Structure formats: C-alpha cells, structure tokens
C-alpha cells in the first residue's frame, strides 16, 4: 500500500493542488481569491494531462534519424519507434486549454472590476447583503 502511494506520488500532488484550488473557489469570500483558486484548479488539470504523455527514456517528438533534404524520401522506409517519443497529443490539447484559461481569467477580472464599481467591495457576503 505504501509502495503504491509512493510510486504514484505525482498524481497525489495533482489531487492536492486541485483540492487547494477547489477549497479557494468554495470557501474564500473574496472574489479575486476565488479567481486565483480557479487558476490553480485549471493548472492542476493541465498538469495531470501533460504528465500522462510522459514516458521515461523518451524524447521530444522530432524524428531522430532524418538525413537533411533526403529525409522525405527516406522517411517512408524508416521504422518509427513509438516508445522513443513522448506522446504529443495531450500537449497540443493542453496548449488550447492554457489559452482558454487566460481568456476566462480576463473575463472574470472584467466582471470583478464591474462589481467593484457598483458595490464598492470585493467581499462576497457584503455584495449579497447589498443586493438584498
């Protein structure tokens, strides 16, 4: 059991990070703190996906034995060993997720600025009290 926990230690780190972000989103009353929690949550998920692409003793997905300008001609004859290369598909997907993360951050901050202009506070409880 202990060996199972230690051998998968990075997955525990992601879960801890995700729970830190989730706690901040739920329990903190300040709106900027909630946004920070959302950011941490999203990065934890991206980290999980990127780590699933990792292989030990593998390198970046660039052809190792290509011969300059003749590469296209010889590439069909070459056998590409998949275990030599890191899986690039999660990287590409998570690249999009990072851009979406910053877009949501910008929209959330714009809403926070608008709320502060109307209510003069960033505290969630005071805002709810002012709305009622």
């Amino acid at each position, binding site marked *: 059991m202990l060996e199972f926990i230690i051998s998968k230690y990075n997955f525990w780190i992601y879960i801890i990070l995700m729970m*830190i972000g989730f706690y901040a989103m739920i329990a903190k009353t300040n709106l*900027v703190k909630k946004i920070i929690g959302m950011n*941490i949550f999203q990065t934890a998920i991206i980290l999980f996906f*990127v780590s699933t692409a990792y292989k030990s003793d593998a390198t970046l997905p660039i052809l190792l034995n290509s011969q300059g300008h003749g590469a296209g001609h010889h590439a069909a004859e070459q056998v590409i060993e998949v275990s030599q290369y890191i899986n690039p598909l999660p990287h590409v997907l998570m690249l999009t997720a990072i851009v979406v993360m*910053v877009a949501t*951050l910008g929209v959330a901050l714009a809403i926070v600025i608008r709320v502060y202009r109307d209510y003069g506070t960033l505290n969630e409880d005071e805002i709810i009290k002012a709305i009622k």
Partner: protein
Amino acid sequence: MILPFDIILQLFVIICAVAAITVKDLMSAVIILGAYSFFMCLMWAQMGAVDVAFTEASVSAGIGTILCIAAVMKTTRRTKD
C-alpha cells in the same frame, strides 16, 4: 524526469499555491500566483512538454499576471481572508 528536481519543484508549487490563497494582501497573492505559474512552467519543461511550457510562461505567467495586477490596482488590495 530528474527525481530530486521533480520533488523540489512539486514542493515549491504546493507552497506557492497555499501561500497564494492564504496571504492577506491581494497584490501579494497575485505575485505569488505568477511565481506558481513559473514553477509550473519548469515542471512542464522537465516533463518534455516544451511547447506547453513556453505558452505557460508567456501567456499565463505574463499576460495573466499583468491582467490580475491591473484588476487589483483598479479595485482594492485589502481582503479579509
């Protein structure tokens, strides 16, 4: 993946995440979030996801921190939690 480097980075990432949500000053929290993003970028670089690391360093740690600082400057730095 180099094991001691990996463990140190993960430790720093968790410390930064906890500090970012516990600190009482919003400007400090935002700056610590920027440091968190850079540590995360290092983790991805050593996992072999160099393109993701570049994007994180420029977009999330750069533009994200600037957006957060601008929002905090336009509103208030004080917070109760």
